């Protein structure tokens, strides 16, 4: 008699356990997925800001230290980065220089551009830098598609955009347009 009662009680507990489990697992998955998306997106944005602001600040520092000053800086490239570039844009009056990062997570593609206080360039003789002569990056910056603007994109290629810690060589160089800060990715 007592044995049967214990069996019913055990079955009751097992069923209740299953029901709670069946409710908790999807609830946990939904919560984890929603918070993880927003948290990882915020962390990614912060890393992009660190990268863009860090490189433009380093370029400014090298520029004012004088010609042939150089340093290597290390920054983390976050996930979903599709393109990274140094941009020279001219509006018929003067040149403006930006460092840009294009991020595409499959849902919400974004272009982050960081204005530089000093003239920027990159090293086209380096294997990891290519001038965007086919204008494939022009659509990323609306102004570059307008007739009153001319743009030069120095695109960082190969594994530069892959996630992880990356070195960047920043040095002040003398070009035909005057003194500029050059940013070049250094891949091991």
């Amino acid at each position, binding site marked *: *008699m007592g044995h*049967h009662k214990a069996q*019913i009680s055990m*079955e*009751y507990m097992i*069923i*209740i356990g299953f*029901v709670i489990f069946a409710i908790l697992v999807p609830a946990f998955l939904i919560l984890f997925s929603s918070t993880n998306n927003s948290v990882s997106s915020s962390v990614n*944005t*912060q890393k*992009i*800001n660190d990268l*863009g*602001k860090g490189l433009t600040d380093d370029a400014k520092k090298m520029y004012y230290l004088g010609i042939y000053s150089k340093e290597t800086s290390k920054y983390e490239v976050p996930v979903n980065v599709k393109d990274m570039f140094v941009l020279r*844009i001219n*509006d018929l009056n003067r040149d*403006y220089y*930006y460092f840009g990062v294009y991020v595409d997570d499959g849902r*919400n593609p*974004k*272009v*982050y*551009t*960081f*204005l530089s206080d000093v003239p920027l360039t990159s090293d086209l003789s380096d294997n990891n830098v290519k001038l965007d002569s086919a204008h494939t990056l022009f659509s990323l*910056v*609306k*102004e570059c598609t307008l007739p009153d*603007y001319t743009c030069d994109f120095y695109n960082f290629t190969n594994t530069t955009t892959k996630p992880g810690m990356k070195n960047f060589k920043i040095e002040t160089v003398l070009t035909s347009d005057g003194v500029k800060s050059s940013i070049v990715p250094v891949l091991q």
Partner: protein
Amino acid sequence: MLTKKGQLSIETMILYGLIALVALSAVAALIYFHVLDLGRYLPDTCDIGGTGDLKCEEIRVSSNGNIIEFGIRNVAQKNIADLKLMLNETANIHLATLAEGNFTGSIAPGEIVKVTILLNDTTAGLSSDGVTLINKGRIKQGNTFEARIFTSYRYSDGAITQEASGSMKVKAS
């Protein structure tokens, strides 16, 4: 006798389960159709997103519920011009279209400016499919308003129009 007790126990559990299911479904339906607004218990949020040059520090809804005011601070180290904010409501309750506001003029580093957005109040009446749009354009007291924020601005000494997207949630009080 014992089998009957077991059967009773199962029936009780099924009954409890069904009651719980019906109650949960009712609550879920109330939330889905925006009758029950759980968001009102959460604090207001406002995030501009982008490269972090602008920070949304204040947000409030006017007493009549058709104006949202933002306090936006320039946290960049450069002057910013042509600031424009656009709201795209996620639930499509109060806004029929994009609502926008802007601040013309230059914003110095560290300066905070007020950007006012007037919600679209022209949709009151009937929509094309005959649905009454009584509350469109206004946020009722105690209700929350959630939207995506699209921001565009330009550095005063720059050439590119910077764009950013973030989110906001505010309660009309």
